[in-house]
């Protein structure tokens, strides 16, 4: 499989060479959507996920757990399905997202569970941030590529299969336009020595959807409602009139 990894890497690098890097920040704003879920992520070089022993053991525990969480309706006892996915899992959700961009701030607004991330440009990381599902992010431009550095995560899964992470997880995401500007590439590098022997990188691509708009998504007690339909039912809150 080693040669396959090399081919994949070469393809990625070739695509990179085609990316239009003007040396200046590019306009990433707009609605992007892959229209497909990416439930499992893998290193882009085709190698196996470099689990540590602890990482492999935790992954084995997580796999049945995440299935149980994602198949049950949110209940009084368990609302974990409505907990924000965090990154990089959110990139594989199969829902669109919108990038809002200013020189000092970029906001990533995901339709999935109306999650959003604030990325402050050219600011130093917070000294002692409160842990969050999306961590604490700062960004900078490397030519036309937006680089987002994130740390201070609450416990999440890295993908829909339950890939684990430890307390000191650091994620570096590199966002850039390729394919004449109509495709957004996201490279997410996972650096977590507790769960993985070495940093590794997953890749996602999304298509610009100028005519698409972000829709409501609701994950609440007893119901999940999205553009793809309703699971469960919305209890009637109103009792008089209509």
């Amino acid at each position, binding site marked *: 499989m080693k040669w396959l990894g090399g081919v994949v890497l070469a393809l990625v690098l070739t695509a990179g060479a085609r990316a239009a890097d003007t040396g200046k920040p590019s306009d990433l704003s707009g609605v992007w959507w892959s229209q497909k879920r990416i439930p499992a992520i893998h290193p882009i070089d085709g190698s196996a996920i470099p689990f540590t022993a602890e990482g492999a053991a935790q992954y084995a525990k997580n796999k049945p757990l995440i299935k149980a969480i994602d198949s049950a309706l949110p209940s009084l006892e368990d609302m974990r399905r409505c907990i924000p996915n965090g990154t990089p899992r959110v990139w594989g959700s199969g829902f669109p997202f919108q990038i809002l961009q200013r020189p000092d701030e970029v906001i990533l607004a995901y339709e999935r569970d109306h999650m959003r991330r604030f990325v402050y440009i050219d600011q130093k990381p917070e000294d002692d941030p409160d842990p969050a599902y999306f961590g604490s992010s700062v960004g900078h431009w490397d030519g036309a590529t937006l680089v987002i550095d994130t740390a201070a995560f609450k416990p999440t899964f890295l993908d829909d299969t339950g890939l684990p992470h430890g307390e000191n997880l650091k994620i570096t995401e590199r966002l850039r336009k390729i394919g004449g500007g109509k495709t957004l590439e996201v490279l997410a590098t996972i650096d977590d020595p507790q769960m993985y022997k070495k940093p590794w990188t997953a890749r996602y691509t999304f298509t610009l959807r100028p005519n698409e708009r972000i829709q409501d998504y609701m994950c609440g007690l007893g119901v999940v409602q999205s553009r793809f339909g309703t699971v469960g039912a919305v209890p009637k*809150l109103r009792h008089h*009139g209509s």
Partner: protein
Amino acid sequence: MKGLGIVVAAAVGAAGALMTTAAFAAPDFSGVWQVARPYSTGLTPVTVDGQPVPISPAGQAELDYLTARDKAGRPVIHNTMMGWPKGFIQASRNRKPFEIFQEPKQISFFFEEDHQYTFIHFDAKHPDHVKPSFLADSIAHWDGDTLVVDTIGFNGETPLNSIQLSAKAHTVMRLRLINGGKSLENIITIDDPVDFTRPWQMKILYDREPAGAHLAESVYAENNRNLPDLNDQ
């Protein structure tokens, strides 16, 4: 000379219109805001005319029902407990900040509370068939320095104080900067023939947070213990 006067007046009018169009720059609402205490949730909405909220018999019946349930120790679930969207009005009255991100074609409101957000587009009209939702469908335009947001398409589950706006509700918000840009005023006309006997206006003031203020991550799904019984509603 009358004809010339008309021509001159027309020319001046046209020039004025052009100048107005060219000179207009929308005020910048961008930044982080938080409701001023007297206007926040938990308090009676502040009406513009100083009169009591003109609640209808159906609205009063709903309020009485909720009060009786509370007194009986069987409180009714509400949106916050459920992790459901509260809609713009109630979310903006919450004592947590929100961020406005303003662009020419869209103005976005990001609420700290339960990571809610709503995007409002500068569209000319609502879609022909609005899909009812908690956030409903909003369109915006500028009336001078005032942002006008017209909203229809509520699903009957969007709260306003203790009761839910009905599916027939129509709201118009007029937002403008005051106090030298330190405050944002929101005058909301609420037309809901189910809950109220007539259209009425409420006022909310938001204070601008210091530069560099950031929103925290707030997730209600983490704190759903001791909720009312879902089967007892």
